[in-house]
Each structure stands twice: as C-alpha cells, then as structure tokens.
C-alpha cells in the first residue's frame, strides 16, 4: 500500500518536472527566435522616409480624393461649355480617366516602394491634366463671352440698317453709280428676290460691296464706249469692306452675264464654278484679297471676248456663295 502511494507521488512529480521543462524550452525558444528576428537585417524593412507605409498610402489617397472632388465640381461645366474645343477635351478626359484607373489599381494592390513612386507620378500627371482641363474651360468661356458681344453688336447694327433703308430703296450694300443700274433689268430668276439676297448678305457674308462699275473700252485709245461693235474689253471696278473683327482672306467671285444669259469668262484657266444656295454658278474670274478689320479696298478686273453682244450685261459679286453686289451695263 505504502509502495503504491510512493509510486503515485513519483509519477506526479515526474510529470510536473516534464511540464516545467517544456514550458522553459518554449519560453527559451520564443525568446531566442524573437531576438534573432530583431537582429536579422534582411527582414527589417528600410524606412525611406519618416512616414510609415500606411501613412504614405493615406496621404496619397487624400490628395487623390481631394483632386477628384475638385474635378467633379468643374467637370460638368467643362462638358457643358465645350464646343470647338470638345475634341481636345475628350482626349484630355480620356487621359484623365485612364490615370485615375491606374491610381485606383495601385491602391487596391499591395503597396511597394516602386508602386508609391508610380502613384506619386500618376497623381502629379492627374493634377496636370486637371489644370489643362481648367484652362480649356476658361478658353471656352472667354470665347463664348466674345461671341456673345459680337452677336449683340451685329444684331444692333442690323436693326439700325433695317431702320435706315426703306423697302423701295436700293439695298445698302449696293450703291448703284451706273446710270443704267436698275435692279429689275436682266435679273436671272434665281436672283429675283433682291431683298432676300441682301438679307442673306447681312447675315452670312463677311464682306459688303458697293460702287460697282462696268465699262466697255475701245481698243485704240482705251476710251469708254457704249457701242458693242467698238468694244475691245470690259473693265470692272468695285469696293469691298471687311465687316469682321479679324483679318480676312476673301475670294470674291466676279460674274458677268452676257445678254444671252451666258457667263463671260476671262479665260478657261481663270474661270470655274462655285456653289450658291441656288446651285452651281460659273464665275468670270476670281479675285483674292486680304482685308484688315473694317478695311475698305478698291478692286478691279478686265474681261475680253471675241464678239460683244448688244444688250444688258449683268455684273455680280459673290462671296462665300452669297451675292454681295450687282449692277448692269447696256451696250447698244
């Protein structure tokens, strides 16, 4: 009995000893492992700056979200105000969305040093794009303001002109200096509504023309003649004014209709056809001119034919396919 008790105590003490050894070993192992980790240089991350990874990511995210917030406020107005700059803007917006996606992808993945550098670059790119978008927006707004002012001025001038011209008068842009000038004479059907043409001129053509003159010249002394058989050349003069606020290059189409309705041509190399609201029309010759804003220019031309018909010659000027002046000349 006594022996069995002693044996039990011995076993229990052995077990306790074993448990204490295990505990001591585990503490020792834990201590030595953590010590090794602390000393091992390859496992310790190198801190490149004073901020921790989490801090860096957070600050980048802050800049990113702040930039996005700012952009969201301006982006709609940019879209609404774009017109001629829209193509450019679309490109910039596509770039912006691409950059934003790249940044979002970077935040989703585990962050490394290289990723942080890329994220920094992307954010600065994003900020650049935003400043470009902002400047485009400003350009569009400025252009809109300028056009609005121009439109107002134009409408006011239009009102004044309409008030100044009575319905029976010659249109403002055609000052008939030739005694033979009558708007009813030799008017081809497509140009019948002279008032309409003038109205179109006022709204669509940048140039006005006046002082149209067409004269027949004799071959010997270059004097003016009214007889068809004595004519050698037809010479024409007119004045044009640039009504825009910009330097304008204009192509003025000169059309001289003979009494039989056919267009008199300077030469086949200098004549051609152009589009009008009423279809194609052949021009006698084309005069290119450059005018400063508000500038007036006196221009001239000459035409020659083998034979001159008797009757009315109609001299018309077109710019941008719109008639800007007309007169007639009679040869007997």
């Amino acid at each position, binding site marked *: 009995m006594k022996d069995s008790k002693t044996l039990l105590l011995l076993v229990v003490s052995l077990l306790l000893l074993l448990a204490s050894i295990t505990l001591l070993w585990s503490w020792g192992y834990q201590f030595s492992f953590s010590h090794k980790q602390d000393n091992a240089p390859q496992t310790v991350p190198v801190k490149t700056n004073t901020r921790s990874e989490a801090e860096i990511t957070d600050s980048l995210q802050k800049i990113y979200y702040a930039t996005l917030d700012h952009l969201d406020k301006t982006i709609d107005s940019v879209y609404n105000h774009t017109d001629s700059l829209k193509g450019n803007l679309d490109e910039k917006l596509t770039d912006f969305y691409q950059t934003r996606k790249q940044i979002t992808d970077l935040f989703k993945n585990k962050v490394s040093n290289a990723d942080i550098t890329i994220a920094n670059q992307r954010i600065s790119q994003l900020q650049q794009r935003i400043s470009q978008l902002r400047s485009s927006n400003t350009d569009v707004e400025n252009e809109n303001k300028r056009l609005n002012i121009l439109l107002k001025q134009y409408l006011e001038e239009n009102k004044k002109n309409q008030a100044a011209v009575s319905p029976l008068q010659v249109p403002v842009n055609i000052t008939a200096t030739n005694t033979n000038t009558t708007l009813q004479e030799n008017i081809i059907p497509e140009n019948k509504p002279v008032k309409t043409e003038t109205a179109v001129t006022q709204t669509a053509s940048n140039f006005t023309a006046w002082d149209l003159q067409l004269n027949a010249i004799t071959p010997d002394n270059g004097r003016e003649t009214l007889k068809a058989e004595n004519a050698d050349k037809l010479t024409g003069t007119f004045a044009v004014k640039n009504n825009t606020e910009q330097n304008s290059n204009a192509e003025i189409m000169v059309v001289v209709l003979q009494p039989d309705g056919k267009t008199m041509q300077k030469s086949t*190399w200098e004549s051609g056809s152009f589009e009008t609201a009423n279809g194609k029309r052949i021009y006698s010759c084309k005069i290119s001119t450059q005018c400063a804003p508000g500038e007036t220019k006196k221009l001239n031309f000459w035409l020659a034919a083998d034979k001159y018909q008797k009757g009315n010659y109609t001299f018309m000027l077109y710019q941008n396919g719109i008639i800007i002046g007309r007169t007639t000349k009679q040869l007997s």
Partner: protein
Amino acid sequence: MVYTFFKRLLLLLCTLISANQLFAQPKYNLKFKHSDVYAGIEVGSKGVKMSILEIGKNAQKENIFNILKDTSSNTDFISFTDPTYSATLNSFYNLYNTAVTEYKIAPSKIYTVVSSGVKVQAEKSDKSAWITKLTNDFKKKVDDPSREVAVIDVTDEARLSHMGIVPDERRYSTFLIDIGSGNTKGGFFPNGDTKTLRLFELSWGTKSVANATDKRSGDDKSLATFDKNLYRVLSGDAKNEIVYAVNVSNAYNMSDYIAFSGGIAWSAATLMFPELIDNPVVPVTYEDMVKFNDRIMNNYSSLSDVVITGTLTDKSADKDNITSEVKRVNKVFDQKSLLAGTGLLLNIMRQFEGVYEKKQFYLVKNGQVGWISAYVNQHLSQ
C-alpha cells in the same frame, strides 16, 4: 428656142450647184475670229487617230485650239504582225484621204506623226524597221515622197503637250501630268525656257491600277473587295513610286499650278463640272476630288446623264451636249475604272497638298490633241 434656152440654163445651174458642193468647205462650228483648220493624223499604240482642229488666237491673244472632229480606228500596230501592219497602213491612208476629200483640208495643213508609245515599243521589241517601212509605204500610197512623218519621242511629246495645252503666261509655273491607261508621264520647264523639260514618269496608269486591283481581288468581283484592294495597291508599290518620282522631279518647289490630262481627267471634269462643258480646262481642289471619289463609290447612280442634266441649275447650259458627253464618259469608264483612276489621281494630288502652301489643280479635257496643236504651231512658226 425658149425651151432650149431654159434647158441650157437648168444645166448651167446644176453644174454650178455640183461644183459648189464639190469645192465648198464643210461647215464647221468655228469659235475664233482669226483661225485656220488643220488635221493631225497620229499613229499610236492602239491605232490611228485623226483630229481636225481649229487653231487660232482667242480674245486674250493666247494660242488656242478647238477640236472640230476627232476620229480613230483600232489597228493595234504595236503587235508588229503583218495583218496589223496592213490595217494600220490602210487606216492611215484612209484618214488622210478623208481629210483631203471630205474635210477639204490642203495636204500642207495635214500633219502626220508616229507617237512616242509606238517608238518605245518598237525599240523594246527591236522592230524599229517596221516604223520606217510604214512611213515609206504611206508616202508612196499618198504619192507625196517629200511628206514628213515625224517619229516623236517621249520628251518631245511631253514638251509639245505642255506647249499645246498650257497658256504662255503659265508656261514656267505649271506642271503637266498626263495620266494614261498604262502609264503616267508629264513634266515642266525648270529653267525658264522650253528647251529643257524635266520629265516625270510613272509606270502606273488608270488601267494598270485597275488590273492590279482585279488581280488582288481574286474571284471576288464585288465592289467592296475592289475598293479594299484598290487601297492596298495604291498604298503599296504605287505610292512608293509616286512619292519618289514627285520628290525627284522637284515639281513641288518649282510649280504653282498642277494640271492633269488623260482619260481620267476628262471623265472627272465632265462628271464633276457639267456646267463647264465648253471649257477645255477646269479648276479643281483636292477636297472636290475626295468628294467625287466618295460619290463614285457610294452614289454611282448620281453620275448618270439623266441625273446630271436633271440637277443643272444654269439655264444657259447646253443640256444636249452635256448628255452626250456624260454618256460617252460612262461608256469609256465603268465604276471600277473611275475608282482606280481617281484613286491614282488623288495619290498624286496628295503629294502637292502642303500644309502651308497649296497648289492650284486643273483638269484638262482635251489633252490628247494638245501636242498636235503645238506641233502645228511649231511648224507654222518655222
């Protein structure tokens, strides 16, 4: 007695009328105040061609020609076989005879030549003796041993074409390009005189582009496949050759005006500008030509004579003349040939479409007879 008198009078009247009919000049629709009528007979690669021309000065005092009659017969001389030789000789003689008897043109006003195409082909095939034989046989046949039958070379032909088509005041600022069926040639005068011509040549023409495209298309003859392969043909070897030839010619720097002649220029001018039917030359822009190319592809029916004359707004336009000319174009060029020709034309035009400096393009309708008129003028001045 009275009966005999009336009988004699009637006989005399009949004789006078017959004589008048026999010796009277045929009625031509002459354009100029001071002009003469000439005939040019040319032995070309495809056959013999005769043009009756009115040559004179217009109101601008330019030398100018007006085609009164144009006729040809296909004899295929460059095959250099006995049957084609005989056919060519007979055709050459018959056309000469027609000019003398029917059109009442004096032999001194009839000019006979052999074109550069024949000369080049004869030299390639070592058949130059056939040309000498043809000209000798022709002289015997017309019984005129002193008659000159000139054999023109490529440079001469290009120079004469320039002088016949381009007016004097644009002589040294115009680059003339003739787009033929098998090749393209032309040139300009770089030194301010007509002695030196800078020759421009391409081995591509309307027909050769169309043939190469057909070959690429294989069995699929659809228009869409043709168009796709045309782009490939013109983007490949043709483009390289065009870019190189234009650069080497230095024409971009030396010319203000680029004038195109040849069949495709005539057809494009006729279909694009029917209102200018009487004008032998029409101005055109690169954009006009792009639109026309698109119209051939997507709205070909709008190029029919009925639609074209129906859309004319100029009441003075000669609708009958326009109808017959548009019909003639549509007979010579089908949709694919027009696409091939305008494609080639656009490729050449693109080389002159600078960002800062644009050239003025022209389409010349009667380029094929331009050199004959210059040849006549040259002989008259001699």
